[in-house]
């Protein structure tokens, strides 16, 4: 946590990429200042140490550096159950887990409260929700995609470099690279996490996410999208320990207009905060394969039905 207890500026001044883009503009600006500093220093009394000189120069150019989002973060809400407002509801395991087997109540994280489905498209969400236990891709341990991965109930870690921002998610041991040095490129093929291109708009990290598989959902309430999903995320560090997170979802096949979710992300400030391993495959195998076990005696899927085509 050495660099994460305050809004610190990046200290890595030497981008790896050589392509001409915003980061390089910052780089050359920085280098110009550094070289200017060298010239000034060479005409001035000798510094007491090279490090002091570096430090003084670095502080003089901090205004050019983007905020440091590095750290371990977590959404603390119930959006993974339902991004829209919802009261508590039992899951089909309350006979085993009692009060633990409940989706907690939560207010909507959707700006404007409701998802603007095209009139005929809401029915699919309701159908998804009705058969949630068999259909939810996250319950099967499939990669949740963006934005759902952000607010799954587990922390994630941001590692920030000039060429890419890497996010390691505890849930599913998933991850993604946000490329900062290749604007205008596109994914060769679709993927569950999609293709993320980042840029800085002032102090906000803006991430364009494209080429996601159509199979992911936004939550366990069956809110869904098509293969035309496009997501724009915005990460704004609003104080030392909070990021305001926004994701604007555009999918003209399913929604009548773009819509936005917004939620705070909280820094995990424990001294021993770390990402642990959560390989969910081993916990999804019962759901997926129970009916294919030797001596299988009957349906034991969460809602009591036999998944006809679990994969």
């Amino acid at each position, binding site marked *: 946590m050495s660099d994460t207890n305050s809004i610190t500026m990046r200290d890595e001044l030497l981008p790896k990429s050589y392509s001409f883009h915003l980061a390089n503009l910052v780089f050359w600006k920085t280098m110009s200042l550094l070289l200017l500093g060298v010239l000034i220093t060479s005409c001035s009394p000798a510094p007491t140490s090279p490090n002091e000189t570096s430090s003084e120069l670095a502080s003089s150019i901090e205004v050019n550096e983007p905020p440091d989002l590095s750290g371990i973060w977590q959404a603390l809400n119930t959006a993974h159950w339902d991004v829209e407002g919802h009261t508590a509801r039992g899951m089909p395991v309350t006979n085993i887990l009692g009060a633990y087997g409940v989706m907690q109540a939560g207010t909507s994280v959707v700006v404007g409260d409701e998802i603007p489905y095209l009139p005929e498209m809401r029915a699919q969400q309701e159908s998804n929700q009705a058969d949630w236990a068999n259909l939810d891709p996250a319950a099967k341990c499939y990669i949740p995609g963006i934005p759902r991965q952000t607010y799954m109930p587990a922390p994630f870690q941001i590692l920030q470099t000039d060429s*890419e921002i890497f996010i390691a998610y505890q849930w599913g041991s998933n991850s993604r690279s946000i490329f900062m040095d290749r604007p205008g490129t596109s994914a060769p093929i679709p993927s569950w996490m999609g293709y993320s291109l980042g840029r800085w708009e002032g102090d906000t990290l803006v991430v364009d996410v494209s080429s996601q598989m159509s199979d992911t959902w936004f939550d366990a309430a069956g809110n869904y999208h098509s293969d035309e999903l496009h997501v724009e995320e915005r990460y704004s560090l609003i104080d030392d320990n909070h990021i305001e997170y926004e994701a604007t979802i555009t999918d003209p096949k399913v929604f009548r207009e773009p819509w936005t979710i917004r939620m705070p992300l909280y820094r995990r400030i424990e001294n021993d905060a770390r990402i642990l391993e959560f390989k969910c495959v081993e916990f999804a195998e019962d759901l997926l394969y129970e009916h294919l076990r030797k001596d299988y005696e009957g349906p034991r899927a969460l809602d009591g039905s036999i998944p006809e085509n679990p994969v």
Partner: protein
Amino acid sequence: MKNSTLAVLVFALFGISSTVSADVPMKSWGKPNLQGNWDFRTITPFQRPASFADKEFLTADEIEEYETAVKNSRAARATAEFDGEYDQQDLDVGYDQFYLDQGTTMSSTMRTSQLVYPENGRMPAMTDRGRETAGYFRALQRRAPEGPEDRNTYDRCILGFNAGPPMRSGAYNNMMKLVQTEDYIVIQTEMVNDHRVIPTNGGEALPSNMRLWKGDSRGEWDGDTFVVTTTNFNHLSRFNGTGENMTLTESFTRLDDDRLEYRWTVEDPEIYTDKYTSVVELQLTDADLFEYACHEANYAMPLMLSGARKQEAAGIEDDTWLPSWSR
């Protein structure tokens, strides 16, 4: 002028000294830059073939000869009629030569094997306990699977066969990405889309009751080499037959613009009578890692389980479920 060249110039002007070669790209905080996508394909055999006997290194001519022989062998296999030994292997493994991506060159170490210890380049013997454990798991995978747990961690998409840890050149997806900050280095392997986030300050070891599939990795810089110690594996991780008390030590040393030395040592006295060490040199690549969504497309698992249930229903006892590459 490349940024890295300018960086060297700036650091030289500031009088910041470095212990590494001028060819090694550096981070601004004075450590070698390990970041990038690294290709760990090699046809250098893991263990030294008998034909090389006591020979530790090859000449350039010998390497060319070896590489040519491998290429010719693959070409022969690719055009072989499907009525002999090869096609059975293809069926068992599920891939023919088209799908394999094992590289075409030996490691630039110019060694006869990846293993450099024991000195003969061969795996140390297993202990009695090691043989007993290996026998148990082979028997488990030889029989028709009663459930997904009977299959190995690769079939279950929990671990990747070449992703370790440690990483070792295999059939395909021999790629890893390193992302480096001052406080952490991430190792992202293409195989089963997995990562380790490794603190660079030594970190704090997990208590022994916390066991992870990939173990608990902590890193420290030893001069210009990043050294990672991994413990706390679970009893099913079983890299190369090791047990939960295996200690893995990996070291990453940037050699120049394009190469990274990757050295690792496995110590598991419960399973092996000696430690063993591998060294290869990885190549920096412009290629991206793909998202290898193994579990999401694991059609093989329900098909295997369905097949096993059909065999049972037909009264067939089948103990040939071990793939040919494991026999």
